[in-house]
């Protein structure tokens, strides 16, 4: 039912087929992200129920239908504005480590707050699967989430799960499989801003486009620059090392421009 919302895309990869994929696990704090992680990777660590429990970035692997996945558990954050070290870590990973799929775990009992993060991630990448977790709790609280409609609204696959008992995980794994094999083409919903901002964004995008690697979403970079957040540019310049500039010189240069 859900997949009907997407165009069955042609298999684009003529190259030798890949079998190793990277998946980033993102989400707000305390949405059962660690439980999803454990459920997928089979790691049986006990997970307590309090926010901020995942201190270290956890990594795990699993295999499904001849594909091997590396799953990276990002710190739980409410946004990706790089306000804190956690937000910066999560943002940089989604942006620069270029995971094949970013799996965003949401809490069905307070979906609205979780959607903010989903929309922000959709600005960075279109390779996103949303997992609406804690369905059992939502049912207990008489909250109903229309998963199919959410998928249509967001333009990406959405799976309803209950990580504690494994409900929905077969579908989740199948969706991940189809995503990485290119069988699902997403049409992510874009947030549109007010007219003045949109004009600025498109102007900036034009200026930036030649400088950015093609995999980087120029609209998103433009938005960050509008907020005077230059850390992304800094990141790109350092990784390119066109003239082997030291980090210090780049930072000085940026400081100079900011004056």
């Amino acid at each position, binding site marked *: 039912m859900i997949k009907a919302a997407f165009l069955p895309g042609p298999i684009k990869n003529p190259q030798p087929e890949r079998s190793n994929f990277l998946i980033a696990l993102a989400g707000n704090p*305390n949405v059962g992200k660690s439980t999803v992680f454990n459920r997928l990777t089979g790691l*049986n*660590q*006990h997970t*307590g*129920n*309090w*926010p*901020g*429990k995942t*201190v270290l970035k956890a990594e795990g692997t699993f295999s499904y239908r001849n594909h091997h996945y590396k799953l990276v558990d990002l710190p739980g954050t409410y946004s990706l504005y790089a306000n*804190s*070290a*956690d937000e910066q870590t999560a943002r940089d990973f989604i942006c620069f480590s270029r995971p094949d799929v970013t799996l965003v775990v949401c809490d069905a*009992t307070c*979906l*609205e707050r979780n*959607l*903010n993060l*989903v*929309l*922000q991630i959709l600005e960075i990448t279109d390779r996103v699967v949303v997992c609406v977790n804690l369905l059992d*709790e939502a049912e207990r*609280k*008489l*909250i*109903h*989430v*229309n*998963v199919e*409609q*959410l998928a249509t*609204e967001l333009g990406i696959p959405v799976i309803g799960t209950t990580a*504690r008992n494994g409900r929905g995980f077969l579908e989740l794994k199948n969706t991940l499989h189809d995503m990485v094999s290119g069988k699902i083409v997403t049409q992510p*919903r874009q*947030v*549109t*801003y*007010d007219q003045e*901002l949109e004009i*600025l964004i498109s102007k*900036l995008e034009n*200026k930036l486009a030649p*400088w950015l690697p093609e995999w980087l979403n120029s609209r998103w970079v433009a*938005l960050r*620059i*509008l*907020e*005077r957040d*230059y850390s992304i*540019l800094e990141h790109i310049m350092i990784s*390119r090392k*066109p*003239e082997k*500039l030291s980090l210090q010189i*780049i930072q*000085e*240069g*940026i400081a100079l*421009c900011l004056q």
Partner: protein
Amino acid sequence: MSAINNHPLLLLHGIEPLLPDNASQIRDRIVSSIYQHAEEISSQVVSNEKAWKNSLDFKLDNILTSRWAGFPIMILLLTLILWITISGANYPSQLLALGLFKLEGYLLHLMTAAAAPAWLSGVLILGMYRSLAWVVSVMLPPMAIFFPLFTLLEDLGYLPRVAFNMDNLFRRAGAHGKQCLTMCMGFGCNAAGVTSCRIIDSPRERLIAILTNTFSVCNGRFPTLIALATIFMGTMVSRAYSSIIATLVVASLIMVGILTSLLVSSLLSRTLLRGIASFFVLELPPFRKPQLGQIIIRSLLDRTLFVLWRAVVIAAPAGALTWILANSWIGDSTIFAYMAAFLDPLGKIMGMDGIILIAFLLGLPANEIVLPILIMGYLSAGHILELDSLNALGKLLLDHGWTWITALCVMLFSLLHFPCGTTIYTIFKETKSMRWTLLATLLPLALGILVTIIVSQTAQLLL
């Protein structure tokens, strides 16, 4: 600067004029657009959110975090858990000790039969095996009961409610409200507690949380406290009430620890780490039905066996070392006796003795082995005794001049002394600073010496 002139940085000069002046306003506009979209989508796909306010969770939260009932419920729960642990651990502990020390007899016979030299059977059996047996029999039962209970509370989602209740106190001490959570982690293991301080973003408040984490009585110290409280405080009343009294003593010690934590935090935030507490939003997660099977299996495997294994690994060499120290003679006295004699004056002022202080010093690698070393120290001083129960341990300690004041001072010093080796190493890794690590080590030690001196001297004056 010439290197920059032909660099992509020129791009920034190009776009700079395009940017409007007020960056913060732009952030607000971006954020509010995203919120609007999220609200719009959510209103279309989510139905019936109102039922929640009448739900059980909501009512439960109102009681658990209420102004008048929050603290009593917290203290009650803590006491209840301790009581279940203490009264439940007593019998299995004795059973284990009985079995393990019977085995010690067999092993000794075996060594004699194999014509092993006396020093070898001394190191292996009387040193290593005996301290292992003590660690297992004293630590395993309370841990096997305490950890699942604590994990149950954690799984239910009670810990954030505790943090919510305590937030005000911590803020008044100039610390971060989340310090309560790291403190709770410290009850399991101080090293884990120190690592968990990463959830605090502000460096100043994080340092405070790290420096005060050792005031949470960790799992390695619980068995010592429980054993001493049962022997000395429990026996002051009739048998029927002994475990209740022991529970109350241990519970109040934990309270003293929390209070110390608050006082030291307050002191630090007024002197070395000046500043105001930062604001944060603590989300109260929903109560979740705990998965009992998971809890029991996980808390036994991941925590109980893990901690026990760590204790065993450290206790074995420490036991051997203690035996060697206690059996190497220089002149007419052993090395152990020399050390004890050297520390004795200080120990006496603090209401204890030299052997107790050595036990704490040699127990640096892990707090779990303080009691076994202590016992071995006393045993090697000439008393031959079958140590197969708490009663026998009580007799041994009484023979060495212990009173309830000694026990109280040992318990207080166990609460307030240097953190264990693993914790000190973790603190160094987390702070990357020798100075803070040194402070984290010496501050509780100084406090412990001060407090035990005050307590023992006052007690001697009054009695």
